[in-house]
């Protein structure tokens, strides 16, 4: 766990990823804060912060005394968000690198077609 951002953000993002890839299904329970803390070897307060963030954004919901669950519609909403960010987070650096290497937009488009026909 280390790409420079606060660990609680990385925890939150990892849970989001696992909702997107179906590891945690909608309505299903996610591991407890102590389980996350033990697995990632992080302070439980940090894990709590990550989970709280997902509760605040409506991705997870809390059932008192039972645990945390994935909200209905969470996957679709996360997918929509990620698609929106795809341009700035992936396409922009891709284009910048292509420019630095002297590739034209046509060449770049051609390369993308080849990868994803």
């Amino acid at each position, binding site marked *: *766990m*280390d790409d420079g951002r*606060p660990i609680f953000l990385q925890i939150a993002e990892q849970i989001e990823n696992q909702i997107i890839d179906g590891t945690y299904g909608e309505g299903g329970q996610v591991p407890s804060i102590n389980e996350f803390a033990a697995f990632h*070897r992080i*302070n439980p307060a940090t894990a709590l912060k990550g989970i709280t963030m997902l509760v605040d954004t409506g991705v997870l919901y809390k059932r008192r005394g039972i645990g945390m669950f994935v909200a209905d519609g969470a996957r679709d909403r996360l997918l929509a968000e990620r698609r929106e960010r795809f341009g700035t987070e992936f396409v922009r650096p891709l284009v910048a690198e292509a420019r630095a290497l002297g590739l034209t937009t046509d060449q770049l488009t051609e390369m993308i077609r080849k990868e994803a026909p």
Partner: protein
Amino acid sequence: MTTIVEATGLTKRYGKVTAVDDATFAVRAGTITGLLGRNGAGKTTLMHLITGQEFATSGSIALLGESPVENAGVLQHTCFIKESQRYPDDFKPKHVFATAPRFFANWDSAFARELINEFRLPVDRRIKKLSRGQLSSVGVIVGLASRAPLTIFDEPYLGLDAVARQTFYDRLLADYAEHPRTVILSTHLIDEVADLLEHAIVVDSGRVIIDSSVDALRADAATIAGPASVVDQATRSLTVLHREALGGFVSVTVTNVSDDDRRAARDAGLEVSAVSLQQLIIRQTGGAPDHHTHSTLTEEASR
């Protein structure tokens, strides 16, 4: 949040040496707080002051709201595991564990037995005959199984190998999660414990130079690298801790970095990367232990 330890202008001098210099900080109850710094920075003196084993020269220290000096009322809630704990000459580890319940109200002997197995500690051997690592594990077991509301570990791992240290960290986290309490962990193995800590207090030459949540520290710092002119432009308004140059390429460690700063730097084609807690502390406590002592100052001056 309540505080469990509170120091105000705390100072300790031994003759001409100022071991702790005007330290003001608070340890929040229920956190794992790192007390970090180089050897001789004043960590151990601070812990002695917190546990009432030393008188402050000036300033004040409160443990659970009271002065800890000769105050059995508050000290009974404290377990202090020292790096150089001494035991009576004929003591064996089993004697230590047998007397522990008298000192620690929350002592869990079943948990202690589990730990003894895990650390493979020979409980029937004289403490004098134990290896350095085995001696350390006696302290670690007492510290964990005491479940004291405030547990202080001063460099508890001398001689412990990597496996035993990992066992210690894992057991500490798991037990802390189940039985929340305050833990102060003094260490210079910062990378190993960085993720366990919620809060960090960094001392250097007796002074508290950082007192911050670890999340905030990480969010605040970055290393930005790329062509010198672009990097300098991007880091103009930031606090530069360190600057390294290789030809026209520079790598700068900065603090007070916002998300916008990061984005702007990335958009300018620069590489933005994380600074580990250890790197950050090295930068702030006078560079690598050898000849870089004044790198921060000289770099700043040359800019």
